[in-house]
């Protein structure tokens, strides 16, 4: 089926080794970021179409969208969503922050614990 073909091969590597201009780790993240930037533009264009169609049909004017002021309850829901969103996006930073204290308190790698547990069994 063609959609399987597209999923598997739309992003296939072209013949010829890929040049890297930055540290490979950095360039990989840049490439992922630019794809995400692209998809934000794609989503933004769809929202723009929706707004214009709604306005053209007299359902919601763009003026009403621009002038929209959320009620206190709506603002609270939105604020909560932003907090949740930031917590998701910045999860690794939260965990790295927690690791500072955890390491000082003797936090171990699982591999280190594995060695310890094997030693326990041998003992």
């Amino acid at each position: 089926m063609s959609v399987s073909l597209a999923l598997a091969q739309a992003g296939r590597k072209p013949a010829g080794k890929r040049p890297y201009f930055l540290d490979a780790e950095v360039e990989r993240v840049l490439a992922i970021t630019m794809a995400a930037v692209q998809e934000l533009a794609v989503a933004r264009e769809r929202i723009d179409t929706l707004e214009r169609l709604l306005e053209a049909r007299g359902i919601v004017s763009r003026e009403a969208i621009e002038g929209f002021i959320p009620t206190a309850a709506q603002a609270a829901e939105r604020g909560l969503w932003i907090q949740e969103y930031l917590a998701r996006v910045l999860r690794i930073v939260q965990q790295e922050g927690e690791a500072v204290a955890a390491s000082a308190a003797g936090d171990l790698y699982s591999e280190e614990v594995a060695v310890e547990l094997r030693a326990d069994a041998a003992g």
Partner: protein
Amino acid sequence: MDGTAATPSPTAAATAYDGLPDSRVIGRHGIFPETTHDDVARINFLAQLNRHLAMNVAPSVKTAWERRVKPAFEAKHGRAPRDRHEVRKALLGDPMFNTWSALRRATMEQRQQAGRWIALRQAEELAAQAEAIIGDDPRLSLDPALPIPRYVSAVDHHCMAGSYHTELIEGDVSAGANYDVGLFITTGGLLGRWSDGGGRAIVDWVRREKPGFKPRRILDIGATLGHNVLPIAAAFPDAEVIALDVGAPMLRYGLARAKALGIDNVRFVQADATHLPMFEDGSFDWIQTTMFLHELSLSSMQAIFAQSHRLLRPGGVVLHVEQPQYTPAMPLYEQAMRDWDAFYNNEPFWSTLHEIDLDACFVEAGFDRSRLIHDKVSADARDIFPAAADDKVEDFGRKAAWRLVGAEK
């Protein structure tokens, strides 16, 4: 229903806008793939991203070259760079060049993925449509045994996975569909509604420079979709036009596209132009290539020049539309930037082609040095992008302004 009724007066920002048109201006013909709102938005974004990199990022690379890379090179070596390769290798140490390069490479990869996502997910439907349009039309001649030249198979040109020739399913046209939907992105809309700016430019040149020329037989080599040969065929409807390519998906798509656009005097033939025993000596009035020579190899180009000389009748003309040669007058920085596609966008012959003495190649192939042709041509994209008429943006090798090199036999 569109939204125009609700925006009676354009905003000041919209009035001042002189950027790219929405990609919905691209012409749609009977074999053009279906595109969703998201597909079109992705094309819009990628075309804008290319233009942004050219207009707003590349100038900073030049500043970095002038302010820090070139002075550092001169301090280290006690002399200026001798050639474009020294310039490019010095630039590779600069963060501005590398950021621009990484973004340009990623943009090309995203363009290929976006186009392939459109073409591959409807590969079967497109193949069926092409078959329905073509039927048993004798104007398509495929040669499944044709060896694919090394210059096509070794690296996929401009990061186009599978290049022009790979067939993913029976009767595949997806490589052609991908190529067609993406031309707008890479050239920033500068080829016009049907991506045929190169072909229209050459027709204008021929009408102006060779008034009264009535070619009966025209050969277009490396035709891909035939997008540049269709304006030629339309301008000379009594001529028999033969479009050659090594890639079967391109040729199937090309004939279906030509038929859908109502152009009926083009045959699409799968062949390697270094070896054309099917055509007699002196059997063509005009041989054309458009942005093709840079995808060859030196030996294949020499063989194609020799074939061109053999195939032309006395008084016939061969014309190649290409990006400009690296002359001593072209600054080494510009040469190095133009070489980017050679090394980082899988156009490996690009660098060599633009430094060799093409006049000598014509003479070696049998043409008379006094009958060589040198001129400039550029695409007219006023049908979709009027603001580009006086465009000053240089995109190093991708601008729709070319050199014309050729010869009369």
